[in-house]
């Protein structure tokens, strides 16, 4: 399909905000750019057709089952979009509450922030939250910065952060970017074992980053012991909230001893992922870390009015220009109000139910390395099929042909030929069964017609793409 630049016709006009055009009399010529920019010249209909066609070359949750492990691609209800589009929210300039007298102009928005923080605190059992981090990975970085501030304040000299080998790649990256050495602890039987932890734990450890359930879909049974071990060396425990969808109402991370937690609100609280963001990554902390939270913080006066409080001398400062991705957490807030406590619990229960149902049914045709009760996702392996020349990647492509998005196949790194499947609670049983039947049918092709898999997909706008060529030729923009 041609790019919008290739279809551009010089002189064709789109829409512009208003008539009338000032001369560039206000800026001296030597400060102006030369020549055209090279942006498209297209009619509005040209633009509408182009992007409509582009959209049709995409899989989204509204059209396809998306069992992408660790990504929690559940259905995003539509009414939250109505909320996020209310002019009372979209038209607010973020500097307003920082101006004397203008805080009164945005009490509703400040209330949303205050109430959202309260709900997140109650769901996770944390003392306080910041909504500033703009994505899960940004929440991780904020969390690690909080660890650093805590230790610095106590005069602790700590240089290391422990990360399990099953962790998302963002964990070690966040720890390293904040200036720490990353120490990997290897999983034993799919989870962190106290013995393995003891081998790497010492006084230099600032903290440990955990995901629970982890990326194998397994619950970290040893949590209470792990918490005790970390406390002994004054190391903090960080909870990666990517998999929070499994445990709402079943466990609160604050109650079991985590000091810091981030949410991926776009996952657990069902705001659309937008083809790769924007997300929202609020961070909650236990009491001892509250003084270090980013500024500003929203607070409530005795008269019920909300204001921004900057008076936190130990704060790590600013991780965002304002208060995070307001438009995103606004949707999450509306979603939490809609579901309530019971609805959130049911969401987790049904996500776990669906995952176990799929695991059990697929275990007849695929190796399941840790084939026990899982949480909201599980990892199957195509290693047996790979010996016959059909890899996890081929199953992924075969599933695309069947109209499903593929599971996660690029990690966890500790399972060869991984197919990490997360059905979520919003998919009906027919969809789950269809996917299972289709995947089993593909597995049966391994012996009869493997080429049907290795040459998939054939039903999509393109067949398999040459990634090596893309990296080599580095064609990253249209030529002018």
């Amino acid at each position: 399909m041609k790019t919008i630049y290739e279809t551009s016709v010089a002189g064709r006009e789109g829409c512009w905000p208003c008539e009338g055009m000032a001369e560039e009399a206000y800026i001296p010529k030597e400060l102006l750019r030369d020549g055209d920019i090279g942006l498209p010249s297209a009619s509005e209909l040209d633009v509408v057709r182009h992007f409509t066609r582009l959209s049709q070359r995409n899989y989204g949750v509204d059209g396809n089952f998306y069992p992408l492990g660790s990504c929690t691609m559940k259905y995003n209800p539509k009414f939250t979009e109505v909320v996020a589009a209310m002019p009372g929210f979209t038209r607010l300039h973020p500097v307003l509450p920082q101006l004397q007298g203008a805080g009164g102009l945005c009490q509703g928005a400040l209330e949303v922030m205050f109430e959202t923080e309260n709900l997140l605190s109650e769901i996770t059992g944390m003392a306080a939250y910041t909504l500033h981090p703009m994505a899960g990975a940004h929440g991780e970085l904020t969390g690690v910065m909080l660890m650093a501030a805590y230790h610095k304040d106590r005069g602790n000299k700590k240089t290391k952060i422990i990360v399990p080998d099953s962790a998302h790649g963002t964990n070690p990256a966040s720890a390293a970017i904040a200036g720490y050495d990353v120490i990997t602890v290897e999983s034993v039987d799919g989870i962190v074992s106290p013995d393995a932890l003891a081998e790497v734990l010492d006084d230099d450890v600032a903290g440990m980053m955990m995901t629970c359930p982890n990326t194998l879909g397994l619950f970290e049974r040893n949590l209470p012991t792990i918490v005790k071990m970390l406390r002994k060396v004054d190391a903090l425990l960080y909870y990666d909230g990517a998999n929070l969808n499994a445990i709402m109402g079943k466990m609160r991370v604050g109650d079991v001893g985590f000091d810091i937690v981030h949410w991926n609100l776009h996952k657990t609280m069902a705001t659309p992922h937008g083809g790769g963001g924007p997300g929202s990554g609020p961070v909650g902390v236990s009491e001892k870390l509250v003084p270090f939270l980013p500024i500003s913080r929203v607070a409530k006066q005795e008269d019920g009015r909300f204001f921004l409080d900057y008076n936190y001398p130990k704060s790590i400062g600013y991780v965002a220009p304002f208060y995070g991705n307001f438009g995103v957490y606004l949707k999450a807030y509306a979603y939490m109000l809609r579901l309530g406590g019971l609805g959130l619990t049911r969401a987790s229960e049904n996500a776990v139910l669906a995952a176990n149902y799929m695991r059990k049914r697929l275990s007849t045709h695929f190796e399941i390395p840790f084939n026990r009760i899982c949480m909201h996702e599980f990892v199957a392996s195509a290693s047996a099929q790979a010996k016959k020349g059909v890899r996890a990647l081929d199953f992924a492509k075969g599933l695309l042909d069947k109209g499903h998005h593929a599971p996660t196949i690029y990690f966890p790194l500790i399972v060869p030929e991984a197919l990490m499947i997360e059905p979520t609670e919003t998919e009906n049983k027919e969809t789950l069964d269809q996917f299972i039947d289709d995947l089993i049918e593909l597995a049966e092709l391994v012996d009869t017609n493997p080429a049907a898999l290795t040459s998939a997909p054939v039903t999509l706008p393109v067949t398999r793409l040459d990634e090596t060529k893309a990296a080599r030729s580095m064609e990253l923009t249209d030529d002018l």
Partner: protein
Amino acid sequence: MPYVPHTEDEVREMLAVIGVDSVEDLFAEITEDMRPQSFDLPEGLSEMEVLSKLEAMAAKNTINSVSFLGAGFYDHYIPAAVDALTMRGEFYTAYTPYQPEASQGTLQAIFEYQTGVTRLLGMEYANASVYDGGTALYEALMMAVRKTKRRKVIVSEALNPIYRVMLDSYTSNLDIEFVTVPHKDGLTDIPGLKAALDTDTAALLVQNPNFFGSINDFTELFAAAKAVKAVSIISSYPVLQTLLKTPGAMGADIAVAEGQSLGLPLSFGGPYLGIMTCNKEMIRQMPGRIVGRTEDSEGRTGYVLTLQAREQHIRRQKATSNICSNQSLCALRALVHMCALGELGLKRAARISVERAHICAERLTAIPGVKMLTKGAFGNEFAVILPVNAYEVIAKLTERGFVPGFPLGRYFDGLENGLLVACTEKTSEEQIGIFAEMLRGALK
């Protein structure tokens, strides 16, 4: 239960397949000592009830006031096509394009976005992942530190102070030394910046137009940075960039921008978009998602995520950044916005904004005691010095539904009387007239 389709019969069937008696059995590993000590949440509401609650909260925000607030975040007109196209479920409810064959829409859109912003800024390459203009600046700085293996960073004080405080936070645990070169009455001190450059310098950070609105040509300064092998980083304002000499033409190594003004509503601070572009030498240091053009097995053109070896999901702690997927939809909005307005429309928006700001400056400085702070050329934003503290004026006018601008005293000692005023194509001449009269009245 909302959004959970399973009937009781289906739940029973599924439990039977799994081989357990109840849903609670699935959570047996969460032992009693790990169960919640509280889960005191409100009862769920109907969709109608939630909407009416949120409508009431939205109504507590005043949006019919007239605002001259900018400070890097501007209220530009967004064509209706932007919402209509980017809200399509196929874009909106998709994930990061890990399966390129099923994500050609998102991938081609990112490729077109990369093309658009590199042309706008006159640079060679772009990514589509960064949260906002401030984090883009921080990521640019880290690119320079990695590339040069140096630790000194020279920053112009005329760079948006909101970004400067973010840089301080992000680097507080890292071995980086900032040398801040003060502004000179609102001007970027180019000779001062030049004098600060040396062979220990990793990066030079400037902004155009600077925070006070004044427009510069940094060509010579960037050449001086190049001479000591320091990386030149410029933060710019994309709408005005349709008119101004580009970062590329000035010789910048990395150009970043806040993309909010390209089709994203102000929305109380986010989501916004960090535009990040660089020249050829810097591409392997660039964080985040980058899309490349390639072919499929039948020779057809297609798009994939590329240069992924820099990324956290492969390199883990050795990655260029922890940035994962992000801001893709915001990038799509910026692209559709640029296409819907087109080359001409975007330029017109910029020109009219500039014109309105000049009219506004003229009207305000006609008031006794009000003087321009911004010297020389400026675009759609400028700073004035009032005869009184700007906060007082803001408080007075805000009461009457007018937000006159940003108080410079918030970040700059000695500029307590300074007011930063922004106009866009949405600012009418009538509003400017009323603003001038109200300010005149407030200063009497």
